[in-house]
């Protein structure tokens, strides 16, 4: 890790391109006014479903709203959902994985059987069921995607912990009188960071895809708040007349997700060059 890692990561052109895409969308979310001059929610009954033009570079939707403005403002929603959901999933997965791997025995048995059970439910079914019980809102979406996505991280962290806790430096720390908490947080946790970072980066991509699918189905982010998924809903409703409503938000999703995937793969290769190209 460290400088060597950063160097390898930046030399990987695909990963750097992925990082650039992510930075670009960060910028778009931070300063939407710079990229779209229209208001995302201003209804304009006169200009309904207009194809791309100079005034509306990506056309207008079925309420005459500027599609570019909606796509630009939708970036923030995707970003927020991606990061918060993955934050929840990673925190939970870390906790379960560390406890399970470090303590072993019945703690491990109970936690891992619970992971097995959770993995038996088709994730998308589980998310939909929980949403049906709650109200669809951006906060619930983030929480539900996070709470149904931690199992992979938990297994990963557990496997790493199992091997790390047998290493000599852990025995040395133990001999110096370090307690469990110190060993877990100072010695085991830092050594699991690389695979977690990879999983989290790829996880953001997954969460953005899930959010857009939920919003597309009308059970995610609710209009009028723009999200890439719910703009596509309008695209489907007007599929026979307005291709631009379907094309552009999807492209935004594709490029963003591709960016996170490429960066994630790049981090993996940079952290462990032996795995490159696999």
């Amino acid at each position, binding site marked *: 890790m460290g400088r060597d890692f950063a160097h390898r990561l930046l030399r990987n052109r695909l990963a750097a391109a992925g990082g650039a895409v992510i930075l670009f969308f960060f910028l778009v979310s931070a300063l939407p006014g710079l990229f779209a001059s229209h208001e995302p929610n201003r209804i304009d009954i006169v200009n309904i479903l207009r194809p791309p033009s100079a005034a509306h570079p990506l056309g207008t939707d079925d309420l005459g709203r500027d599609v570019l403005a909606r796509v630009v403002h939708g970036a923030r929603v995707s970003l927020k959902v991606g990061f918060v959901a993955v934050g929840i999933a990673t925190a939970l997965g870390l906790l379960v994985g560390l406890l399970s791997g470090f303590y072993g025995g019945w703690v491990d048995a109970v936690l891992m059987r619970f992971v097995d059970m959770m993995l038996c439910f*088709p994730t*998308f*079914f589980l998310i939909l069921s929980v949403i*049906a019980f709650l109200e669809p809102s951006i906060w619930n979406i983030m929480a539900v995607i996070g709470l149904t996505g931690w199992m992979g991280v938990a297994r990963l962290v557990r496997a790493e912990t199992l091997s790390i806790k047998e290493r000599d430096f852990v025995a040395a720390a133990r001999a110096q009188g370090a307690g469990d908490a110190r060993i877990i947080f100072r010695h085991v946790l830092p050594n699991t960071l690389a695979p977690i970072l990879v999983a989290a980066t790829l996880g953001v*991509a997954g969460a953005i895809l899930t959010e857009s*699918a939920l919003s597309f*189905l009308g059970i995610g982010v609710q209009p009028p708040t723009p999200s890439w998924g719910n703009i596509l809903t309008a695209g*489907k409703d007007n599929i026979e007349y307005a291709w631009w409503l379907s094309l552009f938000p999807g492209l935004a*999703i594709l490029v963003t997700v*591709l960016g996170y995937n490429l960066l994630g793969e790049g981090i993996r290769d940079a952290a462990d060059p032996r795995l490159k190209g696999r």
Partner: protein
Amino acid sequence: MLRYIARRLLLTVPLLVGISLISFLMMHMAPGGPIGAGTDMNPKATAESRARLQAYYGLDQPLHVQYGRWLGRMATLDFGDSFSPDGRPVAEKIKERIPITLTINVLSMGLIFLVAVPVGVYSAVRRGSLFDRISTVAVFTGFAIPTFWLALLMMILFGVKLGWLPISGISSMDFDSLGTLGKIADRGRHLVLPVLLAGFGGLAGMSRYMRSNMLEVIRQDYIATARAKGLPERTVVFRHAMRNALLPVITILGLSVPDLLGGSVIFETIFAIPGMGQLFYQGVMSRDYPLIMGILTIGAFLTLLGNLLADVGYALADPRIRQG
């Protein structure tokens, strides 16, 4: 072999219990509870009649007694009656919807297998070639494309612009007047896009997986031995390398069941296909709790079955597993 299957079956029992526990607890989390839906809005429902209903449905019993009864009903596939206006039993509704969903998913699994294996093998054998690079780019793009968006684009292209394929439902208006061959052709035309899209997500993953398996196997000593014996490259690749690289694919096909089921909600909704996914979506939209819990449980059961088949298939193919 039989002993292996028996042991594997035994392992699924605690998982089944766990799944049922989670499902049961989730149902109890539901706001309003099963009685609320029928009585909350009804001004004539007195506290006394509510209590009578509670007793009638056994809701006054302690939780573990309720769980026991519920488990008994689950075991006989009795999921209760749907909250929808027709009020039919959930099991009946699922039963008439499940064949179309399974048909599409099995077809798309076949498609995944037929396309991904050759692509993966060829990419690995010709590593770094133009084909390998193009397929790698395609795989990465495939991972990032939202399936429902691709569905929209294909509907626009093949349905609206070119008019080649129908974009909704599983049969045409004049379906009943068609002959047997016409019926098959009509059904086929309706299923082309859904099957393609259902398989799409798995395609990228599987070909990538096949490629890395192949690369792994090709490095093994027995491949070097086979080459050193002077066997033709074709025999080395297909007889020695591919057969071993295919083994883990069985597992992945089995593990892809939950993703395929989840995906069916999306493409069945988009293409208006009357399958289990669409039923589930309708249930979610109308908060039909018995229906939701029924399909969730069936989905978990199918996933478990997929895992089981994957393990048994692997054991059949690889003697090292069943002896170990």
